[in-house]
């Protein structure tokens, strides 16, 4: 698969400390890639950098050959917390990025797609954590980005909701041919959702190993849990920690 999203970070520092060094990652169009690794290995920093929120680094991020120099309409980001604006209704939150002509009808359609039919006029305080994260996903999809970045988006919700949200994400991404970069601590989640799982090393975080998941869609969680992929990823994770 040719590189649609081409990430080449020679070095990213936080003050005197190097948090990413020599990270090269190519993601194909429509590919879903999960990033796993120990806390502090730079996964979230990598997403912020690709999203254009963090611009001070040596290297380049290219999307379809075009260098990204800051936040870009083609790149959406869903944060770990929903980060909805509490003074806006849910639908207004979804259209927040559409500066000029917010299309509330489309917002309501997206909300229906993520299972929040009828919630458009509600305030964020009326939503549960899982519902708020659904709304955040709808906001991430509103501008029809080609790439969707997700930073542990399901870590704060219960197991049942998490499975629902994972299915929702998988469907939305596959229907749209979205290229997805997902940061997660949940190996099962990474295996279930991804075409490829990338294991990042400890600080300063180059890619340590990659695991391809060829399982066809729709996927069965039970079968994936028994696949040899999980022990292989866990072994590599243990090896990284043992260093």
């Amino acid at each position, binding site marked *: 698969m040719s590189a649609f999203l081409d990430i080449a970070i020679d070095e990213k520092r936080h003050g005197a400390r190097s948090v990413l060094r020599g990270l090269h990652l190519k993601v194909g169009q429509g590919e879903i890639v999960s990033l796993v690794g120990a806390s502090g290995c730079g996964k979230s920093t990598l997403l912020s950098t690709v999203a254009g929120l963090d611009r001070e680094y040596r290297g380049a991020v290219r999307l379809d050959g075009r260098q990204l120099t800051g*936040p870009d309409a083609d790149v959406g980001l869903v944060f770990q917390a929903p980060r909805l604006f509490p*003074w806006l209704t849910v639908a207004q939150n979804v259209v927040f990025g559409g*500066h000029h002509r917010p299309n509330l009808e489309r917002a309501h359609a997206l909300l229906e797609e993520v299972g929040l039919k*009828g919630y458009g006029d509600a305030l964020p305080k009326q939503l549960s954590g899982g519902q708020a994260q659904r709304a955040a996903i709808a906001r991430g999809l509103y501008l029809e980005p080609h790439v969707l970045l997700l930073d542990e988006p399901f870590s704060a919700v219960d197991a049942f909701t998490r499975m629902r949200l994972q299915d929702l994400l998988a*469907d939305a991404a*596959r229907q749209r041919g979205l290229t997805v970069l997902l940061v997660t601590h949940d190996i099962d989640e990474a295996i279930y959702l991804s075409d490829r799982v990338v294991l990042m090393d400890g600080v300063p975080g180059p890619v340590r190993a990659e695991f391809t998941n060829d399982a066809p869609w729709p996927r069965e969680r039970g079968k994936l849990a028994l696949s040899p992929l999980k022990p292989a990823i866990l072994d590599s994770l243990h090896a990284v920690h043992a260093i």
Partner: protein
Amino acid sequence: MEHHAITLDAPARPQRARRRIGFPLGLLLPALALIGAEVGVRAGLVPANLLPPPSAILESLSWLLENGLAGHVGASTLRVAAGFAAGTLLALPLGALVALNRRAEAIFDPSFQALRAIPSLAWVPLLLLWFGIDEAPKIILIAIGAFFPVYMGVVAGIRGVDRGLTEVGLLYRLPPLALARRVLLPAALPSVLTGLRNGLSLAWMFMVAAELIAASRGLGYLLTDGRESSRADIMLAAIVLLALLGKASDSAMQALERRWLAWRDSYVDKETR
């Protein structure tokens, strides 16, 4: 393709806080104080020339009402409105500038903090010297009083905005002014409104200071007049009016706060309203 979306029931519309009917608890202390004063004076426990009974104060108020009270109240209210508006109009942009710009903070904030510490009465002689005894020094003094709480509210509000929310604004490439209008200002609104309430309350206090010295109309003037003629009933009538006007304007601000901050998900709103 299989569609996994699940649909949940739409939420009920937020209900307006139910109005309590019955005796407003806030009147309990004033009512007790009034009854205590009336009984104390009538029983001869307190001399009536020092503490006139509430019935006498009521009589004085009624006499004042027929003898130009509206003019005094109107003059004071207009001064407060003008001074509060001027102080607020200065405090909003300066507060935003100091909150958003480190260099502006370094230039302005130390001086503002020093000026904030000056008591209202200390300004009076200087303002009289500079601006005479007309309306200008009074309005300027009230504006000074209103300025600092609003300024502090704006600075604290903008500084306290959740970085996560501003990042969403940056992610969607909002230009600086749009970021301020769509993210910073609404997020800072609770603190700004608290500043406005405190500013309004200080505006009333500074108004009295302004009118005590050089005025021929207003509630502060009534206080001076009562002192010079040893009429405790007039002084107390003016104090009661100041309390009522201050409370009324604060209630109006509170109502505005409830309306504009209905989106807040706070413990107090949920549990005790």
